[in-house]
């Protein structure tokens, strides 16, 4: 005959921490539900975010961008920090300064001729903004430039 205290505690201490298959499967289902909810939350956030209907106003960048050959500077376009790089006497390129990996500011390296994200060693081509190496998943968004009589203008951002 078993003692009374054993009947009151029928589950052994070690077995109490043992996860059954049923509990494990339930937890998998819970994680699956959470993943679905997260995906749904993204759609909801997208629906709730007001869409920009008017294109951003062009930004004047000066006659020669205000920088020497091989130089670069930061300017604001549509509230976003962007970088203007002067590759040659009459060759300008502009990109968003936010790295496509985790949003760190990207810097131009004139000697190497590339754009570097110092946070996680991501490198982009200064010619077209494509990823050269490192963790960034996409090219840098490009800012379209237009040369007018009164100088250089940033027109729009191309993702």
């Amino acid at each position: 005959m078993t003692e009374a205290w054993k009947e009151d505690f029928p589950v052994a201490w070690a077995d109490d921490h043992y996860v059954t298959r049923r509990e494990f499967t339930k937890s998998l289902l819970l994680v699956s539900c959470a993943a679905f909810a997260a995906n749904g939350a993204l759609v909801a956030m997208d629906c709730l975010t007001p869409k920009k209907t008017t294109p951003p106003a062009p930004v004047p960048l000066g006659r020669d961008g205000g920088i020497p050959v091989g130089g670069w500077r930061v300017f604001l376009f549509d509230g976003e920090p962007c970088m203007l790089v002067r590759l040659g006497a009459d060759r300008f390129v502009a990109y968003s300064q936010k790295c496509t990996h985790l949003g760190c500011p990207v810097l131009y390296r004139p000697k190497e001729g590339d754009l570097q994200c110092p946070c996680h060693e991501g490198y982009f081509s200064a010619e077209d903004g494509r990823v050269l190496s490192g963790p960034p998943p996409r090219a840098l968004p490009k800012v379209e430039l237009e040369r007018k009589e009164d100088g250089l203008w940033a027109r729009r951002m191309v993702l």
Partner: protein
Amino acid sequence: VGASHGSLTVRRERQGRAREMTVVYAVMVAIVVLLILQFLLLMIGVENYLGGKRSVLAPAAVGSGFCFMAACWLIGQASRRRD
């Protein structure tokens, strides 16, 4: 005769239980695969949301929903077999 009949019954029970366990493990593996698929969809969704490509979000959510429903159905089937 009675003893051999009893051992046969036990063997059949064991075989049936082994089959049940195979089904249960198959269901668990399928759910894990579905879960991995859901994480991939979530990664794609977040990546495209941050990248400004919003057209991918709804299909990713629908796909994730299908995975979730499939996981629920699988668990339902496994529970029904067990009960």
